[in-house]
């Protein structure tokens, strides 16, 4: 008789992954234990024989790490594959399952990091920041609700799509339509981030030149703002981008460099936060 995973086992597997993918993280095994916990309910339902159970579980002791939200699709795909293996389907074994997992975790991590962490979350946070003016909790509440609904139902969708469609499920991620969606979302992300930068980041210079009569004849900040309001802020963002993207400096190094820039800037009078008691 053909074995079929019950909805209950699949849901348990999904919830184990949803909660536990990173709880026992180490640099050495990363999400491996989360994966084992996600597969356990499925393996227990599919196999009665202890040896077969052990064989199946051993498959998932192989190293696994990817972007966990989007990576749910991989767990769903292996759920389908494990079911196929339990039905003795041809060509589904240890090697095919782990080959697929190893092959997918890289690209899925790349797309997931830039799509989920690099675009969706910043857009939601950008909107939330806009709703937080004056210390209003509205923005934070908006973010909590929208992000969690998106994450839970999005991951559930991915899990079951992966289970139903198998390898085909990733095609919509890496295929032409997926590419078009990602490109459009990054346009959206770029614009929102630009607006966040202009609203929440403010780099100002206090550099002023005085004439003999003691009147200020050059206020550098005003000159910058005549070119484009906030142009000094934009210039500093570009500088940081240049250092990280082109000079390959780590964010921490760039931050340390900014400490030096700030110190020198304060000394020469370029920066003055205008503090007073």
């Amino acid at each position, binding site marked *: 008789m053909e074995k079929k995973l019950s909805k209950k086992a699949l849901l348990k597997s999904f919830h184990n992954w949803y909660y*536990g*993918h*990173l*709880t*026992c*993280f*180490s*640099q050495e095994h990363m999400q*491996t*234990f989360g994966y084992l*916990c996600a597969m356990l309910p499925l393996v227990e339902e599919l196999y009665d024989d202890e040896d077969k*159970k*052990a064989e199946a579980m051993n498959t998932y002791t192989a190293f696994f790490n990817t972007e966990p939200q989007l990576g749910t699709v991989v767990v769903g795909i292996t759920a389908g594959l494990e079911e196929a293996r339990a039905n003795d389907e041809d060509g589904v074994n240890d090697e095919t399952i782990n080959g697929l997992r190893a092959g997918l975790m890289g690209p899925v991590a790349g797309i997931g*990091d830039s799509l989920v*962490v690099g675009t969706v979350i910043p857009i939601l*946070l950008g*909107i939330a*920041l*806009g709703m937080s003016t*004056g*210390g*209003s909790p509205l*923005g934070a509440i908006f*973010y909590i609700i929208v992000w969690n609904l998106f994450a839970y139902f999005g991951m559930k969708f991915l899990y079951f799509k992966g289970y139903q469609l198998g390898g085909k499920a990733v095609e919509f991620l890496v295929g032409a*339509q997926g590419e*078009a*969606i990602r*490109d*459009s*979302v990054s*346009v*959206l*992300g*770029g*614009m*929102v*981030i*630009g*607006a*966040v*930068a*202009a609203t*929440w*980041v403010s780099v100002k210079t206090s550099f002023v030149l005085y004439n003999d009569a003691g009147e200020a004849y050059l206020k550098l900040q005003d000159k910058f703002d005549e070119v484009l309001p906030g142009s000094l802020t*934009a210039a500093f963002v570009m500088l*940081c*981008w240049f250092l*990280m*993207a082109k000079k390959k400096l780590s*964010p921490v190094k760039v*931050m340390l460099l*900014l400490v030096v820039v*700030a*110190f020198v800037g*304060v000394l020469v009078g370029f*920066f003055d*936060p*205008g*503090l007073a*008691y």
Partner: protein
Amino acid sequence: MTISWLQAALLALFACLSSMPGLGGSSIGNYTLGRPLVGGLVCGIILGDIPTGIMVGCAMQVIYIALVTPGGTVSADVRAVSYIGIPLAMVAISSYGLDASSAEGTALATSFGAMVGTLGTVLFYGTATINLLWQHIGWKAVEKREYKKLYLVDMGLPWISHLICSFLPTLVMCKLGANVVELIKTALPMDGIAMKTLFTVGSLLPCVGIAILLKQIVKKATDFIPFFFGFVLASSMGVNLVGATIIAAMFAVMNYKIKMLQIAKPAAATGTFDDDEEEI
């Protein structure tokens, strides 16, 4: 503003839930409770000053708006930023008598947050290292085929890692940090060069956060245009963030339709070609 042991313990509990290999799971923990904006709300509720909490959280959120942890390498630890950095910045702001929504207030908050966040990476590597112990137990369980034990290993035992690397550091830092803030205040006067530098750093740091995001988005020079378009919308035209998002969504939809047309076009072209052949 002072922090009691109970308040510090509550903050420490949230630190356990929110960190990167965290006990809340990454969706609820790291990506919700760990975000400084949400952390600001939680700290505001615990310390009894929601507006200040939110303002401090917002200021720090800009630096960490795109905290990507590729391959498990972190440049800042969210539990430290959100549950040590924010409470201490709130204490500092009230002790210096600043307004949290002023430029000085946000500058102080951001420099505090970045400092604590960078030092906090120690906590991240600490937690991950202690987890190796539990994973060792896990491998033994797999060998002995005691699979039920995996749940304990994955979801139970890491609480101990967090007790050591999240709960205790947060508890101690929040409780004693408030005194340190007072010390710094007397040692470093506001109009001195050190504080001026600190505040200036605070205003520069968010540029790094934005730049990290740009690094993700920008693949070629023209990718900068959406960013500057959004920038000009807010800086020159005074559109707020929600408005800017709606305008951006319009452009994203247009971009998607154009892209899909490009995909559909070659297919349609071959289609007509086939038809012609049949006629012949």
